[in-house]
């Protein structure tokens, strides 16, 4: 398999002509601007499959995005369902034996919590949530509940939104009772989800963990909405016969955004 060796003269002529050929090609391409033209041609040629590929990829991405949106919607719906079911469970756990749960919601209008003033809730004595005024309510004071749980009452009503003062707001009062017949007027403490009331009826008994309901005496809240349960009982400093009851509300504003609420006319 020895390689054929060319004579020197042939090598020389080959070398010379090949160099001449190369120089000629370089000159022709330079003078006619062939490089630029062929580069543009290549880009154009590759542009077609590139556009096709990017179109296919975009369509695939769009399809995937749609699927993601659908799944997110499903997740949100399921979360809402879970939340509402949890409310129902809590409501059943805390209901009075004679209480018809659906009765409280009869005639109530449905709307949604649009925002929660978290900063003022944490720092200051201003406990507010805002709900959509989808029913175009006009001036007046309405009780707001989430299912069977009392939430607060309306403060300012504008065309699109209603400001709701939560029960825990220090300016908010509510008439409540427990199952043993103990009644009191509870006042917001301005601290978290707590309200407090003083015992005024020595005849009735109460204990830690007792659930409280609305009495309906105030004419704003319908009777038998669930309010909260006693978490602390302490002696009053001004009167040794009085006790201060600390009641934790069932309604949690942190979990309430975009959830359904009821407006009681």
């Amino acid at each position: 398999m020895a390689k054929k060796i060319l004579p020197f003269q042939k090598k020389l002529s080959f070398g010379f002509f090949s160099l001449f050929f190369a120089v000629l090609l370089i000159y022709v391409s330079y003078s006619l601007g062939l490089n630029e033209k062929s580069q543009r041609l290549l880009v154009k040629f590759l542009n077609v499959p590139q556009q096709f590929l990017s179109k296919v990829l975009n369509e695939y991405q769009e399809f995937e995005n749609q699927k993601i949106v659908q799944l997110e919607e499903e997740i949100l719906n399921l979360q809402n369902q879970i939340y509402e079911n949890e409310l129902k469970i809590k409501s059943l756990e805390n209901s009075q034996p004679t209480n018809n749960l659906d009765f409280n919601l009869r005639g109530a209008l449905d709307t949604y919590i649009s925002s929660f003033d978290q900063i003022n809730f944490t720092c200051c004595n201003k406990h507010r949530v805002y709900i959509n005024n989808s029913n175009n309510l006009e001036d007046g004071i309405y009780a707001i509940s989430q299912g069977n749980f009392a939430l607060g009452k309306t403060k300012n009503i504008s065309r699109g939104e209603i400001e709701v003062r939560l029960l825990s707001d220090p300016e908010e009062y509510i008439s409540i009772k427990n199952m043993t017949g103990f009644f009191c007027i509870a006042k917001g403490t301005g601290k978290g989800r707590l309200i407090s009331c003083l015992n005024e009826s020595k005849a009735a008994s109460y204990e830690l963990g007792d659930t409280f309901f609305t009495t309906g005496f105030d004419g704003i809240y319908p009777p038998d909405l669930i309010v909260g349960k006693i978490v602390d009982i302490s002696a009053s400093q001004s009167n040794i016969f009085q006790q201060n009851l600390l009641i934790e509300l069932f309604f949690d504003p942190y979990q309430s955004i975009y959830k359904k609420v009821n407006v009681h006319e």
Partner: protein
Amino acid sequence: MNEAIRYLSFIFLIIFNQILLATNLWAIFPDVFLVHVLFFTTFVKKIPNIYLFVFMGFLIDLFFSDISTPYTLTYLLIGLYLNFSSLKWIQRSLLEQIILMIAVSLLLNILLFTVNNFSDDMSKRIIINPLINSIIWVLVFINQSKKWLKNI
């Protein structure tokens, strides 16, 4: 058949090289045309004549260079070397092959960067490319040297 494969693979490599350039991988990839020449001079018995080498180099320059010099001149040198040398490429020692590979790659890249205006990111190719090209050749050599020894 070999001729057909040579031209088809050449067209495919032009497209592939354009993709490499578009994706900035060109700087860290071996020079596909040099590797192509290497494969054909190694695995095909008959070496094409010098004019074909020059013309192929010219075609590459048309698509990838502003002036048709780097590949045309490099291919001219490769063609001259392969056609005029008394020994076949695979009969040379590995060290000689590596030195030649590095020298040719270095020359090609210097010419490419002189004639064209590449971005700064690409300049690392001048160093990387000769090394990668020679590594590729070493891998081919290690795989094929036993077969070559049988056939020589």
